[in-house]
């Protein structure tokens, strides 16, 4: 149960989250995948904090949780606003950056 295992697991969870963002189309699920990636980062932080031996990594992880919470709030607010205006909840329909 070396620290390595935790970090590798974190990398695996991160890659899974990234793949999820690329293949899902609903903004809700994309936000969930974003949560996956954030949590993977948290796991890596806490593992390193254990490796180094002080609690700073854990404080970092707590702050990251705060940020994640804010981001979820705003993102879900956006989704609700989109739903209210009867626009389709589909990331592919937002194409104004077309070339």
């Amino acid at each position, binding site marked *: 149960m070396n620290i390595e295992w935790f970090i590798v697991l974190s990398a695996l969870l991160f890659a899974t989250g990234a793949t999820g963002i690329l293949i899902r189309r609903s903004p809700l699920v994309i936000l969930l995948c974003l949560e996956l990636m954030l949590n993977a980062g948290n796991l890596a932080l806490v593992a390193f904090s254990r490796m180094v031996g002080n609690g700073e990594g854990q404080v970092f992880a707590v702050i990251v949780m705060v940020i994640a919470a804010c981001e979820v709030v705003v993102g879900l607010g956006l989704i609700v606003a989109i739903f209210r205006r009867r626009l389709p909840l589909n*990331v592919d329909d937002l194409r104004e*950056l077309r*070339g």
Partner: protein
Amino acid sequence: MSATAWAWLVLLFPLLGSLTIALGFKALPAKAAGIIGTAAIGLAFACGIAALISLLGDEPEARHHASSLWDYASVAGLDIKLGIYVDPLSIFMVLIVSGVSTLIHLYSYGYMQSDEGYHRFFSYLNFFVFSMLLLVLAGNFVLLIVGWAFVGFASYALISFWYRRETATRAGMKAFVINVVGDIGLVLAAFLIFRELGSFDYATVFERAPEVFTTNEWTITAICLLLLVGAFAKSAQLPLHTWLPDAMEGPTPVSSLIHAATMVTAGVYLIARTHVLFELAPTAADIAAFVGLATLLVAATMALVMTDLKRAIAYSTMSQIGYMIMGVSIGAYSAGMFHLMTHAFFKALLFMAAGSIIAAMANEQNIDRMGGFGKAMRFTSITFVCGALALAAFPGTSGFFSKDEILAFAEARGGMYLIFTVFGYVGALMTAIYAFRLVFRVLPGKPCPEAQELIDTGHLHHPHGAPVNPATGEEEDTDVGFPGAEHHIAEQSLPMRVAMGVLAFLALFAGFVQVPGVDDVVEKWLEPVFEASALAHIHPSLEADYIGLGVGGVIALAGIGIAYLLYVARPELPGMLERRLRPLHTLFANKWYFDEAIDLLVVRPVLAVARFADRVFERVVVDGLVSGTEGTVRGAGGVVRAVQNGFVRSYALLLIAGFAGLALYFLLSSS
């Protein structure tokens, strides 16, 4: 002031005149342009006289000065200066050119008075005189070529002076193209001279040439032949002569100045100037002499049947220049230059008189429609007869002494050169016939309508309706101008009368400066230039001179008599002769088919090449390359544009792909 300083002034005044008129034409009234132009050339002539006087102050052997303003190109073995060379030959030409030009400017002052392009005319004419003076004063081959090219341009500009007439523009282009052929020959000769002798400067070249070349070596022969190409193109000798008759499309003063007295004599001047080279290549000199002889005879035959007044005089010019070329090629340098001088006088005069008659005829130039001007225009006819007498070499006139001097020299040289004497006299007979053919067709006899109107009323009416070119029926453009808008005849214009009068006097009496056995002004003056030449020292004996003069006189009178017989006493004879000798007449009348031959041999192949270049090369190769490049770029752009599809997820994919790539790179580079 030194002779070279005067020479620079000679060049300066016509250039200033041309620029002043060109730049200030909006501000200058018409008369002022004419006065400025004439005064500029008059001043040039005065400076020429001053240079002459200054040269006379030197010893004969020391009468050559070079002077340069600045270095034109001084790099890698080239050392070309903007330099002039003042010696008896160049001053001789300067005086003839500026003197005759002054008179012609005076004539144009009256003749071109009502033309729309009055200012343009004088500006171009001044520029032409400047170029010609530059040509004769040049001290090295580069400046000679510059003057040569300028003269060609001036000729083009003045031939197509009425540029809305299609015939005029065609003629201008033809003259220019043939001139360029000559220019190529001249430039190649200059290159070869530089390669062999290392310099362009006259003094250096003529000094080194006898040391470097042996006689008839192929290099020097090539140089001389190339020089001849240039000379023949400019002086309208066979086969580069076809531009001269067409050049009669220009106004009459232009024909008088450029195509009789000055530009066409540039070839003669060139051969005389480079006589050192020609004496080292006798083969080339002989070729030149034979071409001159051939031109002499062929042109005379063409002049015999030509019905256009100005063109007949043009062929006469060609023929007389054949005499001059023949003269300077066989070594009769001073005789050739003397004939150049007298020819300038009487040919300019003939053109002026012809111009006056044509103006009376509202620009109709066909002698079949003319007649009876002897009674209608007294002054013009008298001067016309003076010119014709000099042309025919009537005893005592200037042409008499100059032409026979060339033929006497040929006889004195002996051997093969006797051919030139014999055929020269044949040509002289034909000259006398055609000269007086013109006189007897135009002056005596039943007056044509225009002449009748002059006799009855003393002035000419202006035609009504839109003006039309009599030769082609094309409607004239009144904005640009056209000949014959007003009838400016000598009888009604003082400047024209003054100019023609002076020339008539010179045509009749200028020959007396070089009467064999009495005085030899021209030869003495030109002697220092040709000092080193072996040929120039051949002198015919006095008896041979007098025999020659006698034969010449007899031939001239015989010719005039034959002309009288054919055109006055028995007018039905020419028709009969024509019917009997129909093939010959057709050959002469069609100008020996030279135009058709050149069209077939040169013009058509060039046009075929041009068509190929357009259809195949331009459309397929060049366009294909350009369009191909454009298509490729456009395609590539299309591919790149597809990346911007607006989908956020594809952007995220690219992001992660980039990140993965970077990580791979760092992993690999750190392993």
